[in-house]
């Protein structure tokens, strides 16, 4: 018996009648090769697909190029003395239906390929006189060597429907005129890359804000990541010193602040730092100031306040995470350094920091990504403000908070989608570059 590969081409070329027929009637190859229940299941999928396409799918696809043309009309009803709205096309629903249909088609194509291969495989098994698994055996296998299929199916379906489809849908919005601007909320059109040009164009209003926000986002992410990292590490080292008494107590004090839900502490901080909030009141009571400090109303103050408060939130986290790793540093390294007469500062920069950077590069990248996408700190503390007149982005807005404002508050969906894509591009570049240049990637050998 010649040993042909199991693929669709060979299935069509060398398959028997059942296998070839299953190219049109899906599942027939299985029904004809002793796997009747599975075959019927696949056939039902095909029938459901055809039913869906006739009922909705073809219409959805045909609407995709135009995204709808019928405008919502307003008709004066003389009898009731009111304006009545006639239903027009809703481009947003058309786009969603179109995206879903494309996914359904992709799904059926994948199923078609799988069942073609499977039919051919079954055919070969029968030809070679092998045992064809019965339904019962198949089910048993789903709990044994195919357990991953049982376990991963539901999570994957969840991710597909509530992450991948929304993402594709949102990305497609970036290429449309879907926005409150020019009243395109009900009916919008494809717009090519015009919105991208607008966002990247430094001379336009949106473009100017974009580069501004991008600059601050990167400055913020660098400060937030590295200050937290280094200061958190120093704190962990101070607490873990041999001579420090009451280690558990100190650790408890710091961990307590992250045990309280973050959104609660952030809202409290926001209130405390208001012009007539507790901090200003306290400083006035102590006689240190006479007029309130402009924590949120001045651009520079707001930016520094946010970074400082983020330290308050982030340092305990870092402390918690690095404590275990710090204790893994080989003691001989320290002893050797002390023998050579190195002081604590030198030891930190020559031994501790390089070792930690080596081990925790993936963590640092993750926390950098997390900080670029750090929504709640900015949104709850400053709300992105102070905002200048005519801008949609405030002076402390990150790309994510601006994205939120643009979509949820302003309904500039297309620009919001462009910003989201740009964030993704930036994060991808940062991740790839740092990961490629990190010592843990270049040299997978142990740190020495």
């Amino acid at each position, binding site marked *: 018996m010649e040993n042909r590969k199991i693929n669709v081409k060979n299935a069509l070329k060398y398959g028997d009648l059942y296998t070839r027929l299953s190219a049109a009637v899906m599942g027939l190859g299985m029904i004809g090769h002793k796997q009747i229940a599975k075959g019927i299941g696949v056939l039902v999928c095909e029938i459901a697909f055809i039913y869906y396409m006739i009922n909705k799918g073809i219409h959805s696809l045909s609407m995709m190029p135009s995204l709808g043309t019928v405008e919502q009309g307003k008709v004066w009803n003389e009898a009731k003395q009111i304006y009545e709205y006639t239903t027009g096309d809703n481009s947003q629903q058309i786009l*969603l239906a179109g995206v879903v249909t494309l996914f359904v088609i992709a799904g059926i194509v994948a199923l078609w390929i799988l069942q073609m291969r499977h039919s051919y495989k079954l055919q070969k098994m029968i030809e070679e006189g092998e045992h064809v698994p019965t339904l019962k055996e198949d089910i048993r296998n789903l709990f044994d060597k195919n357990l991953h299929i049982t*376990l991963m199916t539901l999570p994957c379906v969840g991710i597909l429907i509530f992450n991948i489809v929304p*993402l594709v849908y949102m990305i497609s919005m970036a290429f449309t005129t879907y926005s409150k601007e020019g009243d395109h909320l009900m009916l919008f059109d494809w717009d090519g890359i015009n919105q991208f040009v607008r966002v990247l164009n430094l001379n336009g209003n949106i473009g100017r804000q974009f580069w501004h926000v991008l600059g601050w986002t990167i400055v913020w992410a660098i400060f937030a990541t590295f200050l937290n990292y280094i200061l958190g590490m120093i704190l962990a080292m101070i607490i873990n*010193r041999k001579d420090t008494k009451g280690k558990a107590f100190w650790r408890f004090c710091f961990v307590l602040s992250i045990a309280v839900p973050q959104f609660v502490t952030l809202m409290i901080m926001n209130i405390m730092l208001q012009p007539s909030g507790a901090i200003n*009141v306290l400083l006035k009571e102590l006689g240190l100031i006479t007029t309130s400090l402009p924590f949120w109303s001045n651009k520079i103050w707001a930016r520094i306040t946010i970074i400082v408060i983020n330290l308050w939130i982030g340092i305990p986290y870092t402390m918690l995470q690095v404590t275990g790793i710090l204790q893994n540093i080989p003691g001989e390294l320290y002893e050797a350094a002390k023998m050579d007469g190195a002081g604590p500062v030198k030891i930190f920069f020559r031994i501790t920091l390089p070792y930690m950077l080596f081990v925790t590069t993936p963590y640092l990248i993750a926390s950098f*990504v997390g900080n670029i996408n750090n929504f709640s700190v900015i949104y709850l503390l400053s709300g992105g403000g102070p905002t200048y007149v005519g801008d949609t982005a405030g002076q402390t807005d990150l790309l*994510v908070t601006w994205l939120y404002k643009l979509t949820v508050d302003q309904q500039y969906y297309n620009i919001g989608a462009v910003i989201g894509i740009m964030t993704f591009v930036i994060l991808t570049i940062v*991740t790839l570059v740092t990961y490629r240049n990190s010592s843990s990637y270049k040299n997978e050998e142990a740190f020495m």
Partner: protein
Amino acid sequence: MSTVKVTGKKNARSPRRIAVNVLVHILLGILAVIWVLPIFWIVLTSFRAESGAYTNTFLPQGYTLNNYIKLFTDRNVLNFPKMFTNTLIIAICCCILSTFFVLSVAYSLSRMRFKFRKPYMNLAMILGLFPGFMTMIAQYFILKAMGLTEGSAIRIGLIIVYSACTGLGFQIAKGYFDTIPRSIDEAAVIDGATQWQVFTRITMPLAKPIVIYTVMTSFIAPWVDFVFAKVICRANADQFTVAIGLWNMLQKEYIYQWYTCFAAGAVVISIPIAILFLYMQRFYVEGMSGAVKG
């Protein structure tokens, strides 16, 4: 040996060493005050007798329990007890689903070898680079198309939003599973155990810390999220979760009346979550160092 010890003790008593130690403890003391002060302040505020958002003194002038009583009895404007039950129901369902998703995916990726394994892990990494809020609006539209954005269906919508994509957050659990020796599984398989039995009877009991960690994090998520909840609930006040309720109490129209109640609510929510967190922090640390090592 003995001489080394003696010099060590001498060093510890040397004036310079003592000075350093005193300085370190003073520094830690100051830092601890900075870190604990806001929490201490919010607890005091929750017992404050004077109403209103801002007062002229740092410490309250009088103390009362009324804020807590109002929080749990005033059902007209902001119905906190209702929000509490809403969140509890969502949290329990979410907890069951997410725990199943996370552990299933983590176990499959750690223990099974299949074609889709590497692509899945790469895909999860790529999806993680998109800002979460980008999908939020689209998720709302999809839920709307499914009819899950009206009335009590909002609850189902929220449960789906919180748990559907948790299969992407497998890293910590997988890191932990990776540290369990495979030889244990292999021995069980030789004894005739199926993969399912290995998963439920061997790996799960051995990975108890990470199971508890996953259960707790997925239980806490609905309590602390206000963004997704806000977008999906919109103005349906009877479907609000605790986080939106607390957030609302600080908005212009409510802040004067509700500020001290906000403090009370914050304390009420924070205590159980803080206890859960303090309990699970060691699992967190273990998971972290495991994931980094792997």
